[in-house]
């Protein structure tokens, strides 16, 4: 199909296809990981980032309107550094498209140029050999070949040729990639999206999952007239669910066509989940006309269970509950942290964190998740402990978007740093500047040693490690590997600057090691560093067998 004009509907289809193809390659991209630490989640991060754009995109022919809303959705869903950069790339694209009904191929190419420029600007110190390089070089080298009668497929093909060339060269530009023998994962993710465009233009259709949250049985409540009354205009419709027993008297259960039934549901509702298992059909749909759903179902059998709930009331009630909860808890300063591991989460709560978002190494918190957390709070100031360098950018984006409180992102690079910062502060302090100073002094001089398992045979910084072998990292540098978790950790500790003068060593024990291992580590440290006070906390984190905070 020769396309020379791009409208909102086409762009919508392209991005759905881009997302579809990204999903197919998600795992492969995850494995393109420079570091032997299993934080290989670029594929998942980018998928979730783009997914949020697709999910929130409006049905519109207007390309500007579509692109703006899509870019906003992507921004809110941005996870991980590549996700954040991707969101800025699409934002740049939307800036060019925003005032257009439709755009030409040349204008679209202009948008791709603006895309990389905006992405570069978002990064404080742009690193070449990353997704930035790929999105820049791909269009730089394509742009001069753009002609007035070129169609979209030709543009995308040219773009992909250049992008792939650029991706292959990333290891030459970034030493860590070369040492690990991989190409840049973010760049690979972007290419997967554009490949999806091409596959769509070639006539392929991608399935998009329809997911919906499970609703448990709701308590019958008295409905207040304030929530829904004679003048209310319904906004959300009914959450409609039933189980249908197909009946021989009405149809041939074996031949009942679920796809046809879904096609009908699509005409009167959305958020559809419909499954057929032999002669039972289970359906979930949001519709303004639930009676039509039931009526249609009864043509094929009888309903075993059914319910239709007014979602306006549901929505108003949850909103009201949230509001009431929020009003009750106004604070001068509230605290949000990102942690992983039940023990660590509990610890953070006990030290005064209002919200602990479950996330971290393998599950980077998105901008949207931060904004959602902020919304639950009622505070003049919010202090965020990201506890991972890959989350700082998303937290900072959330800070820039959120207007109802002054948000401060402190640069805690690990749960250990966050722990020391929290234990230094006084939760009752109301002066935010004083508090930030205390927190900063808590972070200073804290070294983090983490021990995990290498995800493959590799060599980093001259440290050779085998797949699944314990490896230890000091702050962000891999320094040791050993067949024993204890020995690997001890080797790493020995490299910490002025280790003999350190006063406190806190061990967070992970799920992957036994209590005996933790006890042994503690006594070995005690014996080797008698000046330091050593303690163990059952953090129950995954990925890291041990995380140590040393100061």
């Amino acid at each position, binding site marked *: 199909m020769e396309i020379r004009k791009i409208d909102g509907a086409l762009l919508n289809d392209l991005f759905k296809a881009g997302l579809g193809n990204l999903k197919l390659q998600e795992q492969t991209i995850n494995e393109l990981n420079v570091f032997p630490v299993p934080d290989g989640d670029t594929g998942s991060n980018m998928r979730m980032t783009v997914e949020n754009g697709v999910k929130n995109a409006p049905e519109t022919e207007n390309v500007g309107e579509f692109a703006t809303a899509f870019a906003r959705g992507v921004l809110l869903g941005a996870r991980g550094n590549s996700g954040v950069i991707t969101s800025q790339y699409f934002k740049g694209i939307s800036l060019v498209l925003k005032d257009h009904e439709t755009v030409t191929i040349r204008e679209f190419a202009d948008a791709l140029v603006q895309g990389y420029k905006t992405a570069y600007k978002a990064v404080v110190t742009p690193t070449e050999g990353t997704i930035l390089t790929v999105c820049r070089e791909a269009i730089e080298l394509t742009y001069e070949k753009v002609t007035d009668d070129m169609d979209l497929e030709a543009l995308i093909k040219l773009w992909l040729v250049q992008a792939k060339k650029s991706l292959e060269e990333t290891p030459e530009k970034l030493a860590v990639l070369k040492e690990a023998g991989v190409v840049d994962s973010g760049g690979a993710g972007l290419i997967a999206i554009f490949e999806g465009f091409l596959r769509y233009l070639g006539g392929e259709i991608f399935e998009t999952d329809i997911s919906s949250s499970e609703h448990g049985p709701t308590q019958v409540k008295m409905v207040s007239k304030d929530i829904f009354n004679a003048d209310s205009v319904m906004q959300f419709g009914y959450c409609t669910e039933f189980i249908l027993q197909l009946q021989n008297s009405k149809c041939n259960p074996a031949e009942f066509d679920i796809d046809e039934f879904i096609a009908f549901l699509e005409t009167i509702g959305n958020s559809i989940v419909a499954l057929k298992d032999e002669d039972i059909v289970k359906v979930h749909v949001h519709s303004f006309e639930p009676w039509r759903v039931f009526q249609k179902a009864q043509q094929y059998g009888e309903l075993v269970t059914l319910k239709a709930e007014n979602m306006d009331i549901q929505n108003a009630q949850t909103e009201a509950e949230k509001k009431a909860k929020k009003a009750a808890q106004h604070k001068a300063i509230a605290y949000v942290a990102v942690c992983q591991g039940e023990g660590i989460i509990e610890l953070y709560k*006990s*030290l005064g964190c209002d919200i602990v978002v479950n996330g971290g190494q393998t599950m980077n918190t998105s901008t949207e998740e931060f904004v959602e957390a902020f919304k639950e709070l009622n505070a003049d100031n919010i202090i965020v402990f990201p506890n991972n360098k890959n989350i700082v950018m998303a937290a900072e984006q959330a800070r820039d978007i959120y207007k109802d409180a002054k948000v401060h992102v402190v640069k805690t690079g690990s749960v250990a740093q966050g722990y020391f910062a929290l*234990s230094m502060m006084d939760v009752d302090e109301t002066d935010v500047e004083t508090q930030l100073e205390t927190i900063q002094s808590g972070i200073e001089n804290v070294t983090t040693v983490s021990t995990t398992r290498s995800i493959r045979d590799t060599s980093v910084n001259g440290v050779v490690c085998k797949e699944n072998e314990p490896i230890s990292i000091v702050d962000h540098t891999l320094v040791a590997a050993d067949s024993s978790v204890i020995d690997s950790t001890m080797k790493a500790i020995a490299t910490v600057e002025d280790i003999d003068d350190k006063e*406190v060593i806190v061990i967070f024990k992970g799920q992957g090691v036994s209590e005996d291992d933790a006890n042994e580590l503690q006594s070995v440290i005690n014996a080797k560093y008698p*000046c330091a006070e050593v*303690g163990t*906390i059952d953090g129950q984190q995954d990925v890291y067998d041990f995380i140590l905070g040393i100061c």
Partner: protein
Amino acid sequence: MRQIAVLTDSTSDISKELRDEFGLDYLKMAVTVDGKEYPASLDYEQYTPSWIYGEMRKGTRVKTVQVTVEEFTKKFTEYLEKGMDIVYVACSSALSGSYNTGRVVAEELLPNYPDAKIACVDARNSSMGEGFLAIEASNLAKEGKSVEEIVATLENDRDYYHQWCATETLTYLARAGRVAAGKAFFGNMLGMKPILISNLKGENFAIKKVRGRKSSIEELANEVANNIVDPENQMIAVLHADDESAANMLKEAILAKVNVKGVYMGIIGPIIGASVGPGTVVAYFKGKKLEL
């Protein structure tokens, strides 16, 4: 003119040497370790300080018993019989009931000794904060000051004695109900040392927390330097609960910053020790008027 006996109690942590030098006597409290009661002697005839702190480290609950009516009656009578007046410098009434019991017993006894006086003074401090006040009382008595004059001076001067103390944890103090601290001082805080002062009310007040043993000692020395007045002419005290090296480090850190006349080194006795717990180190001195 009647002579004046200056008494204090087990919480003053005042050594035999100092008691002899200043002619002081003290009223004994008691500790119960694992249900068994021992006199809270400052001379440790029945057990060593290490034993009691060792028991605490093992998790044995050590409880304290204030000066009993019997002990007050015995000691007060002893000095009244000698024809002496009594100034009793008591542990902070925010920490112990001894001050009140002392007053009650004094009122009971005095009708039998029409010319005698017993004055109970609330030190609003403990350990050597209380001890220094008792030494001051003894000096005033030697100068020939009256009971009333001594009481007036002590009730003024108690607002100038500083306690700067670093503990391992607030657990013991909190369990004994002998600390005023916000929730910032509780919870799992490895390596964090609460810093305690004795405030104007005579409470142990958690004023800040410092990370690490060395840093906490450095912080105490800084506070001594910031708050001390006329250091060249005063003896200060550094005490510890089973951590002599910390006490020595604190002494050296203080001497590096201020030129004091001298340092009394000592052990935190069983009563105060049972409250603050092993590993505590503390400095007492006279300085600027307390603000809190």
